[in-house]
């Protein structure tokens, strides 16, 4: 039954989270001995004070204590503090997370909405010019470096358009610094970065939908459906697509965990104020603890996302539930 399946997968996820914590902290251990977040550059502090502060912050504890403390903290929503200014990682995450979700969420939705019709067209008109064109675009799309595509789009639509006097797209940020924030402003800023991300998804998913559709249409139950005397449209879109979408959803599901991290490069290129860019900026400043906190958070989301995808798949394909 569905409930049992979910519980089983959930327990497996817990184990993975514990493992992730372990590895995270092992990596962090390399940096533990040297810094006190936000404070150590103050020349007025005496060595005893620093030592006391470090004890207070639990930085000189044996590893297992640190592990337990970390898990305790995380369970209460505390992902650590920055090494630069002591600010809580959690607040940074909460600030930036909506932006990232806005970007990757839009890209995934657009990707799905475009991939399905393109894939179906490719399957129904197999071998036609449209099909070949789609294949070429897909193959090319898979080979283009995301960051380069972003740069090109900026070059064309921000720089060149502006130079040519045409209406141009903003090249950074989620909103304009002055008078920004309304829906149109957000859309205009979202356009290019989301296109870059969506393009990548599209090139993979449309091909996948196409081959999935082709396989489904060659199945016996499609023959049965036709023999029942329904229109070809019903055969393809009700009996066929429903089956062809299952593998696609699995594939999309595999992307869900990457919802938070998938857009990092695009965020950096477009100056998008998301979680990925946060990690990147802090990394350049060697703010280990923030990067760790953000990484751990993103990993938790991956595990949760995997769980969600499994459950979704089980809902869609009745054969899984009862296995």
């Amino acid at each position, binding site marked *: 039954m569905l409930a049992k399946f979910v519980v089983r997968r959930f327990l497996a996820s817990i184990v993975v989270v514990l493992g992730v914590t372990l590895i995270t902290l092992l990596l962090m251990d390399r940096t533990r001995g040297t810094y006190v977040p936000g404070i150590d550059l103050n020349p007025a502090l005496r060595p005893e004070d620093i030592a006391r502060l470090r004890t207070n912050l639990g930085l000189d504890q044996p590893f297992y204590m640190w592990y337990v403390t970390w898990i305790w903290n995380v369970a209460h929503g505390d992902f650590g503090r920055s090494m630069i200014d002591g600010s809580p990682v959690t607040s940074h995450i909460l600030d930036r997370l909506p932006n990232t979700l806005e970007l990757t969420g839009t890209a995934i939705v657009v990707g799905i909405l475009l991939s399905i019709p393109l894939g179906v067209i490719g399957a129904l008109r197999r071998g036609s010019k449209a099909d070949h064109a789609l294949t070429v675009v897909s193959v090319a799309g898979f080979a283009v470096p995301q960051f380069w595509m972003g740069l090109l789009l900026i070059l064309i639509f921000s720089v060149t358009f502006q130079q040519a006097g045409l209406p141009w797209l903003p090249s950074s940020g989620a909103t304009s610094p002055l008078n920004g924030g309304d829906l149109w402003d957000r859309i205009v800023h979202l356009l290019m970065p989301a296109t870059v991300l969506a393009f990548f998804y599209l090139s993979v998913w449309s091909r996948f939908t196409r081959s999935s559709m082709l396989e489904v249409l060659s199945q016996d139950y499609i023959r049965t459906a036709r023999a029942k005397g329904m229109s070809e449209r019903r055969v393809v879109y009700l009996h066929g697509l429903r089956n062809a979408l299952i593998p696609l959803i699995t594939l999309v599901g595999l992307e869900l965990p990457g919802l938070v991290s998938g857009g990092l490069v695009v965020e950096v290129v477009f100056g998008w104020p998301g979680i990925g860019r946060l990690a990147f900026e802090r990394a350049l400043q060697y703010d*280990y603890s923030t990067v760790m906190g953000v990484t751990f958070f993103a990993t938790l989301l*991956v595990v949760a996302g995997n769980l969600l995808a499994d459950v979704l798949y089980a809902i869609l394909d009745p054969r899984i539930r009862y296995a």
Partner: protein
Amino acid sequence: MIDPGQAIASDLPAPAFEGDARRPAQSYWNESWERLRANRIGIVCGSLIVVLALIAIAAPLFTQFLTHVEPSQLDLDNTFKPPGGAHLLGTDELGRDTLTRLIYGGRVTLGVAFLTIALSLTLGTGVGLLAGYYGRWIDDLLMRFVDVVLAFPAIFLFILMAILFRPTPITLAAVIASVGWGGVARLVRGEVLSVKERDFILATRSIGARDVRLIVRHLLPNVLPVLIVAATLGVGQIILIEAALDFLGLGIQPPTASWGNMLTNSQSYFFHSTWLVYFPGITIFVTVLAANLFGNAVRDAFDPRLK
């Protein structure tokens, strides 16, 4: 004395129809190789990759005879020269020749890519073979570990490791491989599980073969096709990852040229030297495209599941 070979041969029934005896039996490898050779796109792309690799390896030769400069050679009188003349592809902000840097960059990028694959495949195959063959708690343990490794969002892990360890080409390859091996392990384990059940394994064990022999001489060759396919399909992605890391400044550091880090400052080239944006990107694109198409051709030829 009766020749046993002859006696046996004459006992066999004649072939059912003439077509039987004519085609010689072919090994899996020969057959796959021939199929690959018949795929023109695959051959073109594969050759392109080989040519690029050769150029990368022979980089000093090229610079000596073609461009006459070193990749890090500054020429502050000739900064931002457009393509043409002595500098076929122009120069950058420090007067360094773009073509030369692309050639040397190829060395770095391709070198890191191949090293990454090698590391990834070795570790992944080892773990996958062990997990698949021994099963039970070893399998559970190893696969949980793989689950954990695969749970980390790769790019974050790369960033983290880039600031924890110094990014040299070798450490970069190790970092990228540290995420990639998980997928390989799962793949290999799956193949082992399906091969393990086949009768020839049972037969081999029943004549007393030891585990190691079984794994190396019997399981591994059957797993190789899947590995080959995975490796060739993965090259393109690894190059893209490596280029992205370099672009972000978390990979190969300047002044060592790599295709990715040639684009790090490209935002400042937008207004006057756009060739500096196009060339490295096009190079990456063409290489990855060729790698992907070649990978597809290899998969079409070698994948046992498509037979």
